[in-house]
């Protein structure tokens, strides 16, 4: 439907709340790529990533009221759901065993390097520039937590830093990154999170 292709994300969610399947299809068209890519990035396993993708969009269909446009963009909401669910799966018994085997084979430093390489390839240039301005300690902590699915305690062990330090670095890094994004005109969460046109994805 052409009217939905032009609709804002907020309007799409309202339409989803009215059981309009084509609105969910449009939300899928706009955001499923990012959802799938993030899940795939975290889980590696394609089948598991597909499961997460389906769960995230079915949840949007069944519980559209969980998204509050006053609190951020639909993209951020869906990606937060995706990240949470992917991390849950990552930390499940099977996955943990698999990851422990992998970790035993690879040294922490090399894992960090590989993760950074993949991350940098997948980011937009503008975001890459902003991330590059972060102090390396903050950046590493954020990357390991977000893309590695590690808890901050695990990150502390990997980086051989106190837990409290890692906690603080992640928080300050996110704040610093927010400032950088705003300065770059990307405005995360600006104007109730709708400062970026996610529909262009």
């Amino acid at each position, binding site marked *: 439907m052409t009217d939905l292709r032009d609709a804002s994300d907020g309007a799409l969610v*309202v339409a989803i*709340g009215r*059981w309009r*399947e084509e609105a969910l*299809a449009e939300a*899928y068209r706009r955001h*499923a*790529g*990012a*959802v*799938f*890519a*993030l899940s*795939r*990035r975290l889980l590696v396993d394609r089948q598991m990533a*597909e499961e997460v*993708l*389906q769960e995230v969009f*079915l949840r949007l*269909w*069944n519980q*559209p*009221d*969980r998204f*509050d446009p006053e*609190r*951020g*963009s639909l993209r*951020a909401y869906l*990606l*937060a759901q995706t*990240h*949470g669910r992917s991390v849950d799966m990552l930390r499940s018994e099977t996955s943990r065993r698999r990851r422990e085997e992998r970790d035993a084979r690879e040294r922490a430093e090399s894992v960090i390097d590989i993760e950074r390489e993949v*991350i940098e390839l*997948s*980011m937009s240039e503008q*975001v890459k520039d*902003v*991330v590059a301005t972060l102090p390396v300690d903050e950046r590493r902590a*954020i990357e390991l*937590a*977000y893309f590695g699915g*590690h*808890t*901050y*305690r695990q*990150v502390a062990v990997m980086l051989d830093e106190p837990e*409290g330090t*890692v*906690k*603080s670095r*992640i*928080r300050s890094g*996110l*704040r610093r990154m*927010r400032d950088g*994004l705003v300065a770059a005109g990307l405005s*995360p*969460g600006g104007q109730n*999170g709708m400062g970026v046109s996610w529909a262009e994805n």
Partner: protein
Amino acid sequence: MGGELSHAEVTELLGVYALDAVDAAESAAVLAHLRNCLQCQIEVAEHREVAAFLAPATSAAPERLWDQIAESLEEAPPPLELSNVRQLGSGRRSGGKITTFAAAAAAIAAVAVIGVLGLKVSDDSRRIDQMAGGTYGTQLNRATSAALADPRARLVDLRSSGDDVSAQAVVLPDGTGYVVKNNLPALDARHTYQLWAVVGDSKISVGVLGPDPGPTGFKAAGDVSAFAITEEAAGGVVASDQSPVVVGRLS
């Protein structure tokens, strides 16, 4: 980590919480705090907005996955066809305190304008925020308190014919309303309560309340004369042929 955390302790965890980098116990403790702390809710939302920029910029999701999702939707939501009103048997729920058809009919008679619900389809049928159990419960509580204190607000006392089941709502002049409290018996997961507003001869769905409703916000447009709550299949319906569980006029 167990038990309640102080605001300062939670604040230190907000960054790692937003990235799902906490363990289950910490996550639960932060979530409990968030329910009552607007400041921390905002910070988490900001961190998640930033994190969304870290996600891979572009990628195509498999087309076939949409087909699978679309297929499964047929089982989950209520019918989209406005004329396809689901016929629910009066005996599908047993042992509850909900009024029978006849008893409900008596209640309806007391609120003559309502009649049996569901004669007219409304395009305003929609689901509403079930915010009480979510992150924004505090906001809802504040909004509800403010509405109750507003001298312009009108109260609605919804009751069953036997007076044993009730719900109270408050409605502001702009149609914003809140179901303040109720003693509706909890339903199983296959059913839900649904709130309807009576505007003229139309019965308009203003929200699906869930199987065990808590305080809930809603928006009712138009000149509403009464409200009613019915029991429906999970997900709600666009029009109902069910007798209301409780009904009440705006005072």
